[in-house]
């Protein structure tokens, strides 16, 4: 499943000890081919610049549709990280304290439009997203990457620096768009461009088990 991809110079596999699964290195910006080569269950290490965006950013991008030139960061081929980090301003630089993902499902109604309008190739978040986003991921060539929720210190240590921020005052620090530089930031592909979703699979399995648990009492009576 994690076989090396020939002819993909920006995507190399690395072995991280005998017990660990082989993880692929991703470097932003991502090409459509980068994304098409990823499958659910793949472990990746993200490198390069990504932007954060959560509730307010998504509502703004989907409704106001700001022109690309009015957004200070390049979004095309980029990754949006669903995260409201803790960032402390020390003199003129931003210091990242903690940064794990927020629940992605809250931006389900906006994400498909954002992927389409801004050429987003990757979403990093937690808990997965719904049908609308899954269809957009498939149609436009994107990928959803689940990362470890609540592991905020661990993940902050895999972000080299905070380059800049946008809409800090207007949206508030947790909801601003931050430009972060990731270094071997770990994530798992849970929704891929072929239309597979690990979240959907787990939901299906748990529904079968729920049915059994609901019927249990009646059978024992």
């Amino acid at each position, binding site marked *: 499943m994690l076989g090396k991809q020939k002819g993909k110079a920006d995507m190399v596999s690395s072995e991280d000890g005998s017990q660990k699964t082989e993880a692929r290195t991703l470097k932003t910006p991502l090409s459509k081919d980068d994304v098409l080569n990823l499958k659910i269950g793949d472990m990746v290490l993200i490198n390069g610049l990504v932007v954060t965006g959560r509730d307010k950013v998504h509502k703004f991008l989907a409704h106001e549709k700001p022109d690309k030139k009015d957004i200070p960061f390049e979004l095309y081929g980029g990754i949006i990280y669903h995260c409201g*980090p803790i960032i402390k301003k020390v003199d003129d630089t931003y210091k990242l*304290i903690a940064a794990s993902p927020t629940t992605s*499902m809250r931006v389900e109604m906006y994400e498909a439009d954002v992927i389409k309008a801004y050429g987003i190739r990757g979403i990093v978040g937690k808990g997965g997203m719904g049908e609308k986003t899954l269809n957009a991921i498939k149609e436009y060539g994107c990928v959803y990457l689940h990362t470890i929720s609540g592991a*905020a210190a661990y993940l902050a240590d895999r972000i080299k620096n905070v380059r800049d921020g946008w809409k800090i005052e207007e949206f508030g620090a*947790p909801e601003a768009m931050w430009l972060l530089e990731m270094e071997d930031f770990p994530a798992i592909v849970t929704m891929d461009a072929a239309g597979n979703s690990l979240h959907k699979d787990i939901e299906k399995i748990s529904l079968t088990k*729920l049915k059994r648990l*609901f019927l249990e009492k009646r059978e024992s009576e």
Partner: protein
Amino acid sequence: MLKLRDGIIELYKKVATSIPGDVEDALKTAYSNETEHLAKESLDIILQNIKIARTTSRPICQDTGFPVFYVKVPKGLSHQLVRDIIMDATRIATNKIPLRPNAVDVITEKNTGDNVGDYFPFVYTEETEEQSLIVDLMLKGGGCENLGQTYKLPAVLTFGDKEAIAERDFDGVRKCILDAVFKAQGRGCPPYTIGVAIGGAKDQVAFLSKKQLIRRIPDIHPNAAIAELENKILNDINRLGIGTAGLGGITTAIGIKIATAHRHPASYFVDISFSCWANRRGRLIW
């Protein structure tokens, strides 16, 4: 009262940057028991993160939550004074630790920047016969808070293309909880700790279900019937297969704590509060 303010700032720091021993032990057990690969790797990172946060004094999670205080105030001490000190301590702790500013004004949509706003933090006070002031603080994550559910029994629960009836009995309660956990999936950072209250008023059960999250994981309910129900439901939840991070696994919840309150004949509420794996709580005795 400067000392109390400093004590509360320290409490904030302890609660934000470490998790209680009983929760960490439960997560270690979950790690040892786990057989699913992605869940095990996730738990490994979670346990590493707990260590890093503790040793570097950084918040465990960037969402340092909605601060909820349960305070027992000795006779003669002003409850309002205690509230004022908590607000003061919150402002200082936000800047010092730092905490993420989470108080957003619903009218202007502006973040206050210091975690203080209308009913924010939320402070419950009650009088105690004791000589000491007892302050319990919970930093309640927003993702798991959103998964909370209130059921009015009897209720029709739909699952897939089928329906199940939750009647006014413990089996009905069990079904509601399973329904809530199924709906939650991995969106609120499992393995969860789940607080439940059964009673007759909407605000009563909402208050009680969340307050159960401060009970320790190994704590056994004094009523044998409820203790048995807690065990039974925990066992059922962990058969759903949602697992750590919702990517499949054998531990979906590490604890479930149920409270009961007398109900009105017309009403039978079941309220469910979720905590993410990072159930951050702590106590200051002053």
